[in-house]
């Protein structure tokens, strides 16, 4: 990784920040670099971006690996989501031994509504990592969004418990909204999250301008 430069005066030692203090004189570029490297003493509270990935039209799976263990909460936002074909979005967790892709190790329960159909809400519960009654995203012509919240993710004695709110739309103006959750039935601190499709062949690849952004907030318990 290329650094911006070195701080400090020409005759003094280089300054180094800690998690609580950054002494000396800093240029904006040096501050940005330190923030990027998570070594700047920012006041905690805002959502820090852990990583962002942008769909390239030819990939079904995007991984966030080496997730820092110093935050309390994680938030994954999938924005402007589009896929070549409608299919379910799967979330797989890595709790230290690689991504667990055994669907039976997950469970989901959700409640959804389709804006084109009045009446009872649609419910779903099954042992798969699929947080929706409906396909998400629906198709390649609409932009959909989803937010996934995971609290206290770095405590090894807790199951991953992922709250979900999502919205998906289709060409006729219908909107599919979902609230619910996904659970990983194996306890462990989350070190990786995989976002993929139930079917990964090319007709279901994520399309541009889909973005996947993982945020962290707070201090690890």
């Amino acid at each position, binding site marked *: 990784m290329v650094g911006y430069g070195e701080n400090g005066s020409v005759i003094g030692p280089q300054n180094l920040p800690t998690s609580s203090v950054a002494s000396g004189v800093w240029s904006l570029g040096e501050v940005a670099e330190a923030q990027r490297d998570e070594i700047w003493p920012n006041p905690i*509270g*805002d959502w820090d971006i852990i990583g962002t990935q942008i769909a390239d039209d030819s990939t079904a799976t995007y991984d966030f690996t080496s997730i820092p263990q110093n935050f309390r909460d994680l938030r994954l936002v999938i924005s402007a989501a589009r896929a070549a074909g409608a299919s379910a979005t799967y979330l797989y967790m890595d709790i230290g031994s690689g991504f667990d892709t055994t669907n039976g190790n997950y469970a989901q*329960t959700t409640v959804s509504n389709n804006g084109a159909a009045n009446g009872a809400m649609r419910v779903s519960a099954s042992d798969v990592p699929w947080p929706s009654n409906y396909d998400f995203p629906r198709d390649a012509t609409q932009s959909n969004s989803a937010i996934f919240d995971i609290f206290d993710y770095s405590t090894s004695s807790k199951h991953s418990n*992922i709250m979900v709110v999502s919205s998906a739309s289709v060409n006729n103006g219908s909107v599919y909204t979902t609230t619910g959750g996904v659970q990983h039935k194996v306890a462990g601190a989350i070190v990786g999250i995989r976002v993929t499709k139930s079917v990964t062949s090319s007709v279901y690849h994520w399309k541009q301008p889909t973005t996947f952004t993982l945020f962290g907030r707070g201090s690890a318990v």
Partner: protein
Amino acid sequence: MADWEIIEESVITGSTTFDISFTSIPSTYLHLELTASVQINSTQTTFGGNTMYMNWNGDTTGNHHGYTGWTRSHYYDGAPSNNSAYSGTTNYAEAAFCNTTACSATSWTNVWILIPNYTNTSTLKSAICRSLQGPTSSGTNAHTGIVNPRIFSGNQTSAISQINLFSDGSTRPFAVNTSFMLAGFKG
């Protein structure tokens, strides 16, 4: 720049904590957000577990709290059920149904609560809550969750400077490692 700031974080380390209080909440924010990872130390094994309640400013006046919510779980299969709807009749509001130690030691409930405009003294206060229970090892349909959004009607115009969260009964404390975070949004 608009931003969330953490006001307080806490984790339960003892086995006799029944009441979590966030006191002297600064009035300098626009909104409050509270997240929690909760388990209640209880012998209750029925899925749905025990309840975490909430009130504000220590107000236990009987007609100052209303709440409603619905539940959906795999265990109780079928349509979402309306539950716990009260209007101005209780001295607390249900915040979430929580996992218990008896169901599964490793299953915890995620709770998210948003309290907008908490310092505005001309409007009644309200909050919205979402929660999700962790999987349980008991029951025919193990490993299920509950979707349990709730809306509170605080029936009070006072600025909120204190939030109390408490478990449901003198024999059911919060479990060790239950954690909370309170944040404020600066516009």
